[in-house]
């Protein structure tokens, strides 16, 4: 084979020869090719990701480990990360999504944490297409079948529909877990003389070279890539979780790494590289599922449900005993050395001998970037586009459309309650789970704003980040940290690389200014097909901490007689809003630029409101604008509202504009003074009252609550 088949460019191959001072043999070439692939090396984005703020008062482990970990108090760490499984899900929706869930769970396990909460960001195409229906059904069933069986609750998520995902759906799997701080595991603590132990499934031919597959565009021949998609076994994973947690609890593991992309190769070389060691791997000792597998197939296999453990030799017997208890395969497959070499033996034959650094210290590429040629067109919006002639029917359309309606048809297929710690589950902006054996709670929000990132990647990404923070703050939580998944088309296009760069800048800016460090993340590039590119889709998940879970402020709890308040500006922007996209069939115009001072003022007051219990229900104004936020509150509270707020410019701007730090609150009559005192110094006004069975907007419309409910629940 030549270097091109291994996925290397001519320049990269020249660099390889220079580093080795010789030609690599075929196995070596394949190993290097995979480790230098976009998927494993992040070569296009490493320099961008370094610009994320990484420090914060809660951060224990930032980027560079299997997952970030933050300190949530009383001896507990919270590990979390989001990761894409886009390409596999596009060709084999059920298995692609299922193994995405399994993979991110092992990342959390690799930190020593018990995986305790999942969320899924799903981006599907036009729901009228048979392909979308097929993909969505398979993906949702795949997530459910794996997550339900492995016993990790799905506590929330995000589902977004746009024709740009017709051929290339996105599946971003998030997982989080709690770990005792003294039991945290690491991939950086191997030392010479330790043994490399492979625990879990036997190695087969499934998912071979999946990393290379994920490092290029999906083509018409992508269905032929099906053998590169892995097959999941949640039963095996459940046993693997329990076994690893037992081993960690007994201090039997020196270091560990899950096996994801590039399987044994990446896990063993990463442990050696990060620990500053070398490693000898015995290919003939690896338990195989199939006969006659070649060494390169064994090294690149992405068979699921395997962990690489680094074990001190005197603890080996105890490790094997635990594996027998759980009926898991377990084998010593290598030795950690001080050679800083990555050596592969087949019997006594040395078949690969590379410096560990060539696998760990991978190259970087900076692609040319230039603003899209139609950037001006995307950013401009003719204001006459959108006059709302019938505000009530526009509101119903926004609630009933794919992006507006209830996603219970999806999340009821997921177990959201197993493990008995879900305080607030799916179907609301903020999920909350209890920190084990404490009164504390972690709050999670997942956000993405593809429309806004399409028309202005910087402001769109900043708004995405701010939105996820507002949800956390409104719930009463301090931001602990954020993880992100950057879903983009090919970075080799200057326009795409420009959008990617701008989105990273926007996220970094918002994180820096609003005090939320980035602790982990993942990049998925080449999300495009011959029929087009996806919109820039940076997805963020922000975690927050509430010290007393009784202070958690949820939504859908409005009661008759409550005063309804709006905090923040009366209007945002119609640019790249759901309303605008519905009217024009594509996103156009600019969103609101991030006002950091206003965001911080909102943050302080929102947290105070929750902790003082000055409101009984609250909701951030997000997709669909103020009218949709109020309608959602009415529907989820099963109570009507009467709103009295006059348009400043137009009805549609008042009702449907988006962006900026804005929220609605339901305040019991005896708390209005407390509430107004807290919000003193920030725009706030009483806009109505909850009660009765109709949603009435004085001077604009009157809708029976039942009409809103059928729009939301049945989508019509």
């Amino acid at each position, binding site marked *: 084979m030549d270097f091109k088949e291994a996925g290397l460019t001519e320049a990269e191959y020249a660099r390889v020869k220079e580093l080795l001072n010789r030609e690599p043999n075929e196995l070596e070439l394949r190993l290097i090719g995979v480790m230098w692939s976009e998927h494993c090396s992040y070569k296009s984005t490493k320099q961008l990701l370094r610009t994320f703020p990484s420090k914060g008062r809660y951060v224990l482990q930032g980027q560079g480990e299997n997952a970030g970990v933050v300190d949530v108090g009383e001896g507990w760490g919270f590990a979390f990360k989001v990761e894409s499984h886009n390409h596999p899900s596009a060709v084999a929706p059920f298995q692609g999504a299922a193994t995405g869930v399994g993979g991110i769970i092992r990342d959390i396990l690799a930190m020593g944490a018990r995986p305790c909460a999942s969320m899924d960001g799903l981006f599907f195409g036009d729901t009228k297409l048979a392909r979308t229906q097929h993909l969505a059904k398979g993906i949702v*069933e795949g997530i*459910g*079948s794996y997550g*339900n*069986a*492995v*016993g990790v609750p799905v506590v929330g998520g995000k589902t977004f529909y746009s024709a740009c995902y017709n051929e290339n759906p996105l599946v971003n799997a998030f997982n989080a877990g709690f770990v005792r701080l003294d039991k945290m595991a690491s991939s950086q603590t191997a030392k010479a003389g330790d043994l490399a132990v492979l625990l879990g499934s036997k190695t087969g031919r499934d998912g071979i070279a999946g990393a290379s597959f994920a490092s290029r565009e999906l083509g018409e021949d992508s269905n032929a890539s099906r053998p590169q998609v892995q097959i999941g*076994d*949640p*039963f*095996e994973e*459940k*046993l693997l979780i329990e076994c690893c947690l037992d081993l960690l609890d007994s201090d039997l593991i020196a270091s560990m790494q899950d096996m994801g992309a590039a399987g044994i190769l990446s896990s063993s070389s990463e442990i050696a590289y990060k620990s500053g060691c070398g490693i000898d791997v015995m290919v003939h000792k690896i338990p195989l599922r199939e006969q006659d597998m070649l060494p390169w197939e064994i090294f690149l296999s992405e068979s699921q449900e395997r962990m690489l453990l680094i074990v001190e030799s005197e603890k080996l017997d105890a490790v094997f005993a635990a594996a027998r*208890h*759980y*009926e898991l395969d377990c084998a010593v497959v290598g030795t950690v050395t001080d050679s800083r070499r990555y050596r592969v033996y087949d019997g006594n034959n040395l078949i690969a001998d590379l410096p560990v650094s060539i696998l760990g210290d991978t190259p970087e590429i900076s692609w040319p970037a230039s603003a899209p040629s139609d950037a001006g067109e995307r950013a401009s919006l003719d204001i006459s586009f959108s006059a709302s002639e019938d505000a009530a029917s526009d509101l119903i359309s926004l609630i009933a459309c794919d992006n507006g309606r209830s996603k219970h048809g999806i999340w*009821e*297929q*997921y*177990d*959201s*309650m*197993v*493990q*008995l*710690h*879900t*305080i*607030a*589950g799916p179907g609301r902006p903020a999920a909350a789970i*209890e920190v084990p054996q404490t009164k504390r709670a972690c709050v999670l929000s997942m956000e993405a704003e593809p429309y806004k990132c399409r028309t202005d990647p910087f402001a769109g990404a900043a708004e995405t980040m701010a939105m996820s923070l507002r949800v956390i703050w409104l719930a009463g939580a301090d931001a602990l940290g954020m993880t992100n998944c950057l879903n983009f088309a090919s970075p080799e296009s200057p326009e795409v690389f420009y959008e990617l760069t701008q989105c990273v800048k926007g996220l970094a800016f918002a994180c820096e200014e609003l005090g939320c460090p980035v602790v982990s993340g993942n990049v998925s590039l080449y999300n495009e097909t011959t029929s087009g590119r996806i919109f820039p889709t940076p997805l963020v998940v922000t975690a927050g901490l509430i010290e007393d*879970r*009784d202070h958690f402020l949820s939504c859908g709890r409005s009661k008759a007689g409550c005063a309804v308040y709006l905090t923040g500006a009366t209007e945002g922007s119609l640019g790249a809003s759901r309303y605008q996209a519905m009217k024009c069939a594509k996103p156009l115009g600019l969103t609101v630029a991030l006002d950091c001072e206003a965001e911080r003022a909102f943050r302080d007051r929102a947290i105070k409101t929750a902790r003082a219990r000055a409101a009984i229900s609250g909701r951030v104004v997000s997709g669909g604008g103020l009218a949709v936020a109020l309608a959602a509150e009415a529907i989820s509270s099963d109570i009507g509202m009467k709103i009295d707020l006059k348009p400043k410019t137009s009805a549609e701007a008042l009702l449907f504009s988006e962006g900026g730090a804005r929220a609605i609150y339901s305040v019991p009559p005896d708390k209005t003074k407390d509430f107004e005192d807290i919000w003193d110094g920030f725009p706030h006004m009483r806009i109505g009252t909850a009660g009765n069975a109709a949603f009435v907007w004085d001077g604009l419309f009157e809708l029976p609550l039942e009409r809103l409910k059928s729009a939301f629940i049945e989508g019509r």
Partner: protein
Amino acid sequence: MRTAVVVFPGSNCDRDVRRAISETLKTAVEMTWHSEASFATDPDLVVLPGGFSYGDYLRSGAMAACSPIMGEVRRHADRGGAVLGICNGFQVLTEAGMLPGALLPNISLSFICRECYVRVERTDNMFTSGLKTKEIVQFPIAHHEGLYFLPPKELSELEEAGQVVFRYADPKSGEAGEQYAPNGALNGIAGICSKRGNVLGLMPHPERATIAHLNGGTDGVAFWHSIAKVFAGRGAF
């Protein structure tokens, strides 16, 4: 009351049941791995928890029904001891022949997790004597195979013998029956007991309706107290 929870490979509600019982009744709970031949203590109540024992491969509950510990579970039941199977535990009990019938895939062919209302049909057994007949309680469900099935003749025998303990119901009207079964269960059957009333299987999860600050409600608390009352005086471990 002394409780043992059996842990099969793939059980995933074992720790939840332990917590629900130990926090409600302030007792320790023994966790017994499926390969044991007997219990370490002398339990009054044996719980087969929810989850995906053996990955639900072959058929839900089929392989767990052959686990070594099941011999002792059966002897415990034969001695008149209490055995409670929740969700996958119910499936194990039917596969083991300790309760009649079978749990088939939901009529929607989808997994369903949501709040669920059931009506208490009988209180003359070891589990619900502390509840009220026709009382409606909310225990969440989470399953893919929950359609209770029995051929017509056996089904009427089951009904006549008074073995139907819980039936899916409408909380507003108080009516119960198949039309309220989210999974299509025949006669709306959510839970049944053995003729002696000492073995109970149900699809809904009372342990998920136990911890007040979580999202599943608290109707399970009375259920645990109801069982404990039967064994009052036996003490904890």
